[in-house]
């Protein structure tokens, strides 16, 4: 091969490998941040809603465009295949056939809707915008959601803006033109039967209506979907304000929250006490000097035969336990409170006082169980340890002061619950392994909202 040929050949190969290399280092440019569209609305939501004839469904055939800011979406799944937008005049619910709508339609996003081809309709008197109408049952035309592929045609995204402030309304000001609006109602609380209840039925994925009562008269439903991420959270007992999307079903007024942060019911109730005492025991009625006995309580020895005893010092009665002088290699004893119903309250809290004496390592711990049958073998049930502050460190005497346990939350438990004090110690002859600490317990209290 001539030198010239060779040169051409080698440069050609080099060129090709250069191209290959260039092909490898391909990095994609990021699109610029979207700043919105210069499209203009030519119809207000109020004007749109006035086009609707109650009980009817209308196809929109003009090139109207409405705009609004997203005030509710499916971020917590309390709204299903639905977003709500609001302008300065009114708000409207848009039915959309898709999941994860909060990705494209986050709260505060301005949206423009091209109405041509969409339908106005209603569900239980609630005005909605949809993609088509199913007239299978002519008496009840059903609005169908807008198919996902049509979003690209119907919706134009604007910039992200501030979510409009909720409209503060009194109950008697609520009217149908406020449908879908973000509203706040104050001086409101749940009726006693609906406090400390889950927001919705998470097991059966069923929607639940709780009744809200306004202090100076009137009531409406707090409606929550069983699919909502907060469906299992318990409703609060206090009084205050609630924010959400105003909705109607027939003549029934409803409010739908976006998240639990929409509920601020922390104040004192206008109907009934603000805080409820579920259980209280100061042991002042017990007979001193014997094994402790009180109606509803269980005082049981699992091993070692040691029971809690009733005692008194400085005119204060309390219960006490120790493995001292038992000559047992293992002492496990249970003191169980009468069952407490956690279903009618929320945010229950347990508190009690303890003192230790001659501490050498025995333990006292507090447990809760919702499957204990109240029988003689509590150790067969499933118990959960409750973190609490227990007196300790009085090595050579009796602790001089009572130690407060702190407020122990029972919020994650429901139903009929048993609370137990479990003592574990021993009286081995070997002084280094001996655990005979004595514990005294007093002032047991369970409060709920």
């Amino acid at each position, binding site marked *: 091969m001539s030198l010239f040929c060779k040169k051409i050949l080698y440069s050609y190969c080099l060129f090709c490998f250069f191209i290959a290399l260039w092909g490898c280092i391909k990095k994609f440019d990021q*699109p610029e941040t979207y700043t919105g569209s210069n499209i203009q609305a030519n119809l207000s939501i109020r004007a749109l809603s006035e086009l609707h004839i109650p009980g009817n469904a209308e196809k929109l055939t003009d090139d109207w465009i409405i705009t609004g800011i997203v005030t509710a979406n499916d971020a917590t799944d309390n709204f299903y295949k639905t977003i709500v937008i609001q302008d300065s005049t009114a708000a409207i619910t848009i039915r959309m056939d898709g999941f994860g709508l909060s990705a494209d339609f986050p709260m505060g996003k301005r949206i423009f809707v091209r109405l041509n081809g969409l339908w106005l309709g209603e569900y239980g008197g609630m005005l909605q915008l949809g993609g088509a109408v199913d007239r299978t049952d002519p008496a009840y035309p059903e609005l169908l959601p807008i198919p*996902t592929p049509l979003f690209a045609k119907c919706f134009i995204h604007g910039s992200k803006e501030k979510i409009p402030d909720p409209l503060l309304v009194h109950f008697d000001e609520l009217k149908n033109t406020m449908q879908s609006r973000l509203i706040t109602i104050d001086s409101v609380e749940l009726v006693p039967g609906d406090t400390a209840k889950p927001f919705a039925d998470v097991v059966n994925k069923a929607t639940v209506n709780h009744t809200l009562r306004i202090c100076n008269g009137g009531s409406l439903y707090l409606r929550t979907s069983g699919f909502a991420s907060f469906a299992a959270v318990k409703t609060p007992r206090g009084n205050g304000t609630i924010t959400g999307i105003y909705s109607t079903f027939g003549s029934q007024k409803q409010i739908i929250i976006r998240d639990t942060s929409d509920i601020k019911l922390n104040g004192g109730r206008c109907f009934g006490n603000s805080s409820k005492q579920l259980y209280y025991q100061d042991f002042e009625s017990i007979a001193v000097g014997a094994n402790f006995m009180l109606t509803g309580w269980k005082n049981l020895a699992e091993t070692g035969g040691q029971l809690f005893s009733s005692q008194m010092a400085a005119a204060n009665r309390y219960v006490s336990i120790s493995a001292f002088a038992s000559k047992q290699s293992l002492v496990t004893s249970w003191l169980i409170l009468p069952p407490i119903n956690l279903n009618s309250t929320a945010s229950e809290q347990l508190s009690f006082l303890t003192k230790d004496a001659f501490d050498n390592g025995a333990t006292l711990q507090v447990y809760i169980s919702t499957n204990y049958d109240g029988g003689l073998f509590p150790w067969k049930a499933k118990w959960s340890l409750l973190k609490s502050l227990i007196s300790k460190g009085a090595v050579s005497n009796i602790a001089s002061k009572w130690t407060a346990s702190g407020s122990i939350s029972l919020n994650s438990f429901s139903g009929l619950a048993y609370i137990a004090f479990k003592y574990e110690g021993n009286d081995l002859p070997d002084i280094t392994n001996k655990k005979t600490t004595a514990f005294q317990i007093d002032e047991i209290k369970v409060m709920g909202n």
Partner: protein
Amino acid sequence: MRMFLFIIFCIAFGFLNAQSIAVYKKIKNHFIDSIELASSLNEASINQFVASGDLDDGVKSAESFVPSVLNANRDLFTNTAAFHFGIRRFRAKGFDAKLFKVSINDIPMNQLSDGYAPWSSWGGLNEVTNNATAIIGLKENDLGFGGLGSATYIDVKASHLRAQTSVATTFSNRSYQYKVSFTKIAPFNKKGWAYAFCLSERYGSNGFISGSYFNAPAYFFAVDKKLKEHLFSLSLMGALSTSSRTAAITSNLHHLAGSNGYNPNWGMQNNSIRNANMQSLHYPLLILSHEFTTPDEIKITTSLAYSMGEKKVTALDWYKAPDPRPDYYRYMPSFQSDSALQLSVNQLYKAQPELLQINWNRLYEVNRNSYETIHDVDGISGRSVSGIRSRYILEDRAEQHKKIMFSSRVNQLIGTNFSFTANINFGWQSIRYFKSVNDLLGGDFYVDWNQFAEDKSVESAALQNDLNRPNRMLAVGDAFGYDYTMILQKLSGSAQLSYKTNRFDFFGGIEIDHINNLRIGNVRNGVFSLNSYGPSTSDKFNNMALKAGATYKFNGRNYFYLNTGWMLQAPLMNDYYISPRTRDTRHPKLSMENIASVEAGYILNAPLIKFRLNAYTALFKNGMNVMSFYHDGYKSLVNYAIGNINQLHLGTEISAEVQLTNRLRSNLAIALGKYVYTDRQTYAVSIDNEDYISEQGIVYTKNFPITGTPQKAYSAGFTYQSPSGFLCSFSGNYLADYWLSFNPIRRTYDAMATIPANKDITSITSPEKLPDALVLDMSAAYSFSLGKSKSGTYRSLQLFLSAGNLLNQSIITGGYEQLRYDIANANTEKFPSKYYYSQGANYSLIIRYRL
């Protein structure tokens, strides 16, 4: 030549579909052969396709020794099948690709995980990898035990390659648009050194498949040193391949998009095409070999190989956001039950076809609007981080391989009639499978959570992909999701003895393998906290295979043979780990596959007629498989462990070549097969968020066809050669009896429960057959002689043109029934079958300069 058509198909589809790997591999081989053929045009050896040559005076006296039939490296049937049947992914005898073995310099290349040979890891190096010997079936074989399908022995030792300097350029309208390669092979010099190198580059973008991309530089270096009777060889090879993957589409979508090349995997980002499903791989392979021939003619060949590399496939992942894939079934017009909405959606796609592509700008926009606070980050109580949490990301599904392989072979002639071959092979392979973040698409972070578990369980532990590092925030490059390593080992030994008499050739062989597989979990999955992290117990298996056969050499033209084989084969790791991504659970009934095969045939090698007939049968018992897919009934990802897969493969292969005149010859190849599942299979379902078998039953598959290959194929063609050496051929090919791979759920008792009384059950259960296809191909070749160079070698410029699918038809090349099935409504149309569509008429032109 015509084979280039099949190269296209192999590249367009072969990469994407494991089933077609066998075809792909063959194509490679035969592509090579075609080059050899064309390159030797000047030598005018037009008969070299015929297996046994130089037997013009082969009819000798009855007593004289008759030469044995040469191996089927250039077997007409195999060549035709590879070049002309590949469009329908023809697999010889209907066998699975893992029954086709490949080795390079004696090192077995089939992966210990899935049994397939990774052809793409040395793609583009045809000029050297063409130096191969293919042994079809369990025949006598002095290179190794062989494979039931075939065994291809590639030899890339520098001194074994044909000395040359050449440059070749390919222009094509297929999956790549150009290729250039430079090859230099220098024979032994006076000091006993030989060397070879080959560099190539293939490039293509936005070809027949829209949004496609192909870029694969490849390299090969080898050096040999001869020291007396020792030969030391060192070879290094690899390809840095980056290519787009193709998606199968439903016929509705094909119709809607109006193009065979429609591809939902890409979209425009800032005016350039971005493909979400790209594959990049690079597995450099280093082999050190030693050959030694003792004075008493014992040949010992030993090789040690090391390979390490990575394959990455990108895909979109998302969390609390709509499916970003434009071909998602809910976005199709057919998903709308309301006719008006169906029409609107249809019209919209027709008016704005860009909506059928990925909207990258939207993904960025969604991510930038997604501000979130993550609590207890990295499991540290109270640690909260706020920022833009990506809802869409591009992930890498990565495989990191490390391999050490050793092989040694002894060949010995014992006397004049016996020859003995023994092999020992050891392979150790470590494969780490994991996902990592490729691109956050405008976000600040992603979180290592399992979005499918979130809905299933109120316990937050289930949400964690890794309980050892809960709530981990992810940046680009961080591993997440699944992460596990498979350690696979195989030790095998084989021995063969062959005996040749004047009239008969006999052979017998045995192979024994010991296999040891182990999974090591690198994360503790929140759903399977007890059996996801750390090493599993190891699974040990012993394989055994036997083969024996005889050939009766009637004379130098007529041969009759009978070969038999029996194998007991352990399941491959991929066929018995139910869901290795999440846990170490194995197939509930581990069984060894039992294979028996017999083939018999007749060969005629006459001067004007070459004819071959091969009849075969193979019986497979107790195969197993695992399928993972989204189950509409359970509303979860499920794993179907299929067992009792019993198959019967029965058929005849016929090939003939007739020299009609001096210039014109005709050839014919026919494959008549019947491949069926002979029994009902069993299935056991485990749901991917619960660790127990939730359902077991029978798949009613008795007498179902083996799918994914035409069971019958016919080819007829003519080749004309002008006195000047111009070669031109034309062929018609007919491919019949192709069934789509079927969904087991539709063939279960449970599926029958929901079929309405008035509905025909067979509409649910019958496997789907593709229409038969007729394809016309042509090719032409010519070589210009450019005289002698100064160094004394002949220089030539060679041209090869091939054109495929001359009738410009839209042919479905393959596909599958979706495993997702609307069982509640017995509706097969909700998740209809998906298909791959062929390119229309296509061409490839190779220009090669050789000296």
